[in-house]
């Protein structure tokens, strides 16, 4: 891709920022640009990680159960979004595994940070 094309792409992306949001929250959207869809999955994962971290910290959920529930909820939400909401053919993206691992580690780290910080602030004086 030439630099000229790239800048045109960038302009389209910034113009289409709103449409990406709309596409992301509209069921059965057509995604001609695979990268765009994977970006939506990536950022959705980050948001899920932070929201779950906040919830787990406030409740508080502790121990292995908290970690396991995060993995299950995170994977389930993405699976439901891809298969039932967007009805994407996962084979186009190299299988469900490729979609499942998109941004997982970053999301996990973000989840741990928010969980630890909320737990420390609200329940830090008690021990497990």
């Amino acid at each position, binding site marked *: 891709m030439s*630099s000229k094309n790239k800048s045109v792409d960038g302009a389209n992306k910034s113009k289409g920022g709103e449409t990406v949001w709309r596409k992301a929250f509209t069921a059965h959207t057509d995604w001609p640009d695979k990268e765009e869809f994977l970006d939506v999955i990536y950022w959705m994962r980050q948001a899920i990680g932070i929201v779950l971290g906040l919830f787990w910290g406030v409740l508080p959920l502790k121990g292995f159960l908290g*970690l396991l529930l995060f993995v299950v909820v995170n994977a389930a939400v993405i699976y439901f979004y891809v298969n039932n909401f967007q009805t994407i053919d996962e084979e186009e993206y190299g299988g469900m595994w490729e979609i499942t691992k998109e941004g997982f580690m970053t999301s996990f780290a973000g989840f741990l940070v928010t969980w630890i910080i909320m737990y420390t602030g609200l329940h830090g004086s008690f021990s497990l």
Partner: protein
Amino acid sequence: MWSDSLLIVFISICTAFLGEGLTWILVYRTEKYQKLKVEVERQSKKLEKRKEAHGDSLDKQHKKKIEREEERLKNNNRDLSLVKMKSMFAIGFAFTALLSMFNSIFDGRVVAKLPFYPISWIQGLSHRNLPGDDYTDCSFIFLYILCTMSIRQNIQKLLGFAPSRAASKQGGALFAAPPAQFK
């Protein structure tokens, strides 16, 4: 304790921006890097498409073409790493100094309470230089690493400095064993 953990999050946000800023000055804005990056991305996408189209074909001509392109991509990837390397070393040294400074500031201080018992091979990090046997006490270095893992990559992605998926995929594939058909 809470103020310490929030301070660590703030420190990692600052260091992530500082790191990306320095890398931008030393690497990302240089013409050589930009050219190579565009070239690697273009070649990776082309190679991926070609592999998808002719991956299973036994045609020797296609195989040779794919091999040639892989070789070219490998060379470009190597050049790209070389461009990055010098400044990465400089940034690495600066950050090691910063990290050791923060380490000495937070030495022996419990900065957070973990809501889980870390497994044994993580305890060395999560309980580093902390007194007592309560392994739910969290050291500076553990929280800092977690913050960096999440914040730095997201900042890179937001600023558009993260490598494209096609390039990382092909880059990873180049270090893996070649598929049987290309042996």
